[in-house]
């Protein structure tokens, strides 16, 4: 078993370097009379610069956990501290603002908006910032360059390959300078070569200091992370550290590092 330091079920707000922490979170769905515990008393902390892969068989609660972390769903019981605030009790509007401000999403099916161009897609989260973020368009252009799409700014999602679309999604997930990037099977729709390109990009982001939490069921993808959390029946079955050699990464500007 890994050291217990990752699981700290203490009361009150977590220390400063913990960007996200869930404490004794349960999520119960009632289906036709009987209850399904999608999450059962889960506690986990994510520190600044963490790189975590969540694994588990189908129905083990991975998506539910990611939805709670993404403030798209509220836990039935328990607390969720994000940026020092307990968001488990917040109303819909505040949750929307928190998503827009502190979180970046990467989806399995890219989820770009079809009628918008590459650069406009990257811009979307900026239109929901209150107060507005200065230097928006410039930031989008820089991020498009970072993910290698500066020559495709005006293209529509349908004119891009899957890998390119996911790059746009990554740039979009970075544009609001989020505390945590949440990725649900980011390589699930991609072939092996493209998957590794995308993972190289995520690795690089983490190297630059980004906190990344991703769901995957592929071992070689999960091994890219520093920690692997395994779920079973809504409980954390194990948390393991990944040992690997640090690879030098080129082409990253400091503008993408958090802060």
């Amino acid at each position: 078993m890994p050291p217990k330091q990752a699981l700290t079920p203490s009361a009150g707000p977590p220390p400063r370097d913990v960007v996200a922490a869930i404490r004794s979170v349960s999520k119960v769905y009632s289906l036709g009379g009987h209850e399904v515990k999608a999450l059962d008393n889960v506690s986990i902390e994510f520190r600044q610069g963490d790189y975590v892969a969540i694994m588990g068989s189908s129905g083990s609660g991975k998506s539910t956990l990611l939805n709670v972390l993404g403030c798209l769903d509220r836990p039935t019981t328990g607390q969720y501290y994000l940026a020092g605030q307990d968001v488990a009790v917040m109303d819909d509007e505040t949750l929307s603002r928190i998503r827009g401000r502190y979180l970046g999403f990467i989806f399995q099916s890219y989820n770009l908006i079809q009628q918008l161009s590459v650069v406009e897609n990257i811009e979307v989260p900026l239109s929901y910032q209150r107060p507005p973020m200065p230097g928006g368009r410039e930031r989008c252009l820089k991020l498009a360059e970072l993910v290698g799409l500066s020559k495709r700014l005006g293209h529509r999602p349908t004119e891009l390959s899957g890998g390119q679309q996911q790059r746009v999604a990554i740039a979009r997930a970075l544009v609001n300078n989020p505390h945590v990037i949440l990725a649900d099977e980011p390589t699930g729709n991609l072939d092996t070569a493209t998957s590794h390109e995308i993972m190289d990009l995520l690795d690089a982001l983490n190297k630059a200091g980004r906190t990344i939490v991703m769901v995957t069921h592929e071992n070689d993808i999960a091994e890219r992370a520093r920690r692997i959390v395994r779920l079973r029946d809504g409980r954390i079955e194990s948390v393991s550290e990944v040992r690997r050699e640090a690879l030098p990464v080129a082409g990253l500007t400091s503008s993408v590092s958090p802060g």
Partner: protein
Amino acid sequence: MKFLQQLRLGFRSLLLHKLRSALAVLGILIGVTAVIWLVAMGEGVSYQAQQQIKDLGATSIIVRSIKPAEESSRSDSNARMGISYGLLREDFERIVTNVPTIGRAVPMREISREVRHREQFIDGMVIACTPDYFGMNRLKIARGRAISEIDMTSYANVVVLAHEAAVKLFPIEDPLGRAVQIGQEFYVIIGVAAERSAAAAIGGSLDARQYDRDVYIPLTTFRVRIGDRVFTSRAGSFQLETVELTQITAVVDDMKEVDSTADIIRVLLQRYHKVVDYAIVVPKELLEQAETMRAMFNVLLLLIAGISLLVGGIGIMNIMLATVTERTREIGIRRALGATKGEIVQQFLWETVVLSGTGGLLGVLFGFLCGPTVNGVRFGVRASLPEVWAALPPNIRNLEPRLAPWSIIAAFAISVGVGIVFGIYPARRAANMDPIEALRHE
């Protein structure tokens, strides 16, 4: 800036389904155009009516002779004598002397007669009147002079022609100084009246009073040359009628005294006429009636317009519901990326407003085409179907639609309002989707 962005986004999203959006726009466009056109037509008709009534004079009271039903005509009538009815010269004297509020009064005798100049002739309307008649009816003399007092006292055989009558009888030559034949007599043309448009109907007829076949002669001359007893042909049978005056027009100085003066005249005439062989027309009342009619008409038009815009609105709602369902995924994405419910509502409301606003703007544009279109149709009918044209009532032939600024503003505002009202339900439906479900949507 934010506003322009929203507008642009709305257009973009609507361009995803061009035909569908175009149809929704069309629905509103037709509604708005209908409002503007109907109101313009209504305003045109009522303006025309008002002008015609005003031509009669808001301070005037018109008393017309009316042929009573056969049995009830004046006592001494028999088959040989014909019938005798209507206003008498005595009535005129009585009105002038007994009604102090009257400033001026003009007697007039009118009869239909052929007016001839060599081989040119018209089915003319002989108006026998006093010099005051011209001023009172705002008849301008274009050339020559009007009938004078001297003409009256000397029973002169002189005539003033209406513009159109002069044109028809004298297509080439100058009519002044020449003579026209009315019955057996010749009359020297002393003047030609200026052109003028039709006035309102009086004396119960629905046709507007046309001036174009009028010829004016002195009342005194009429009495000696033509006389009170005239043959008229009606429905093929000739009849002898004795009528002294066809019409008396009285003008009061103060508009406030119109109604009371009309009442006095009524009482006065009642006393001397056993049967009601006259009618009193008060243009001011007609004007008030016309105003009421116009208001009612406008309410009716707004009702029709409201219904057509409602239909347009339902079309928009239908399309927006389809759009929202189709774009469930987009809604989920935007929610995940930080959009609040309110922002989703706004986004979709903007889209409906873009739809309905575009329809509204285009509708206003087409609204402005009302005048040219009516003129085009008029021209087309006159050129290609002259019989149909001739059969149309003058009110229709002369109809000039009048764009009402309020109708343009109202139509546009209502169309945008319709967009908002009918957009709210689809937009709220979009906003209330569960983001997780929406993201899963295929």
